[in-house]
């Protein structure tokens, strides 16, 4: 099972890219009380039966890891959310794409830690595949005056990372020197 929320985000995004998507969009909206993520792709999609089986930990199509009898990505995410009081939804249409949306309740004691978000976003941008990735990240203040003050202290945030744009600015996302600059860039976005 994954340790932090960012591990789930990276896992789901990797699945989206591996579904042959041209474009994957990752939305991360953080507020004082919740951490909401939406991953949308335009890959091969799943029909109703496949959606149901995707949530079964003892089902795998056997293509990604031949010989393995389990597929734990989505089931573990769903379990983590059920244990800590959030929402989870999975919509998919065969041939059109898939949308995974989940929300963790940050006020819940059992909510997993968020983890190192900039590092996770950096590794998402480095995932292999031709598909473009857009990451939209916001952090808002809401609720009680105290919550507002705390959120403002942490800084409100809103930024977008687009893989194709970054690849163009850096020439390539495969050379070590480009990756060092990419990491510096992604880290700097969290600074507010």
């Amino acid at each position: 099972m994954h340790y932090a929320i960012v591990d789930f985000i990276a896992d789901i995004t990797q699945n989206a890219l591996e579904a042959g998507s041209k474009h994957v969009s990752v939305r991360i909206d953080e507020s004082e009380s919740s951490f909401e993520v939406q991953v949308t792709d335009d890959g091969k999609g799943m029909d109703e039966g496949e959606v149901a089986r995707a949530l079964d930990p003892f089902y795998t199509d056997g293509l990604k890891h031949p010989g393995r009898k389990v597929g734990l990505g989505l089931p573990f995410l769903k379990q983590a959310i059920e244990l800590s009081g959030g929402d989870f939804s999975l919509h998919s249409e065969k041939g059109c794409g898939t949308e995974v949306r989940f929300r963790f309740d940050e006020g819940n004691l059992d909510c997993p830690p968020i983890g190192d978000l900039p590092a996770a976003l950096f590794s998402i941008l480095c995932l292999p595949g031709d598909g473009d990735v857009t990451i939209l990240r916001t952090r808002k203040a809401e609720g009680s005056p105290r919550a507002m003050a705390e959120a403002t202290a942490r800084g409100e945030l809103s930024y977008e990372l687009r893989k194709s744009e970054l690849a163009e600015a850096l020439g390539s996302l495969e050379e070590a020197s480009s990756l060092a600059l990419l990491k510096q860039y992604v880290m700097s976005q969290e600074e507010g």
Partner: protein
Amino acid sequence: MARMTLDELRALRETKRQDMARRDVEGKDIQIIVGMGTCGIAAGAKQTFDAIVDSLQKHGIEDKVLIRQTGCMGLCYVEPTVEVVVPDMPTVIYGKMTYDTAEDLVVKHLIERSLLDNHILDRPAADIVKK
């Protein structure tokens, strides 16, 4: 660290590219070798090195010149020492090359192809040069 924009990222990449290009040896036939033993550094060889790099950039010939550092050349009494190797010109070791002489070195030796008469120390003595 403030939030970086895409344009700043492009600019940063360009700076890094230039830094890396300076270390590239391909297609560079002129060499400037700065003596950076303890004696050279004590006499200001680091400042000389930086001043030469700046001057090469200023005159736009950094892609033709390889600048490198070496240890003590055995001429500690006239540090900082700089050896200049230019094709079709004698190889010269200059002494007392403080940072304010860097511009002279680049303009006179590399561009005008004449020698800096007051700084020439020639080659080391014949008995320590392997013929």
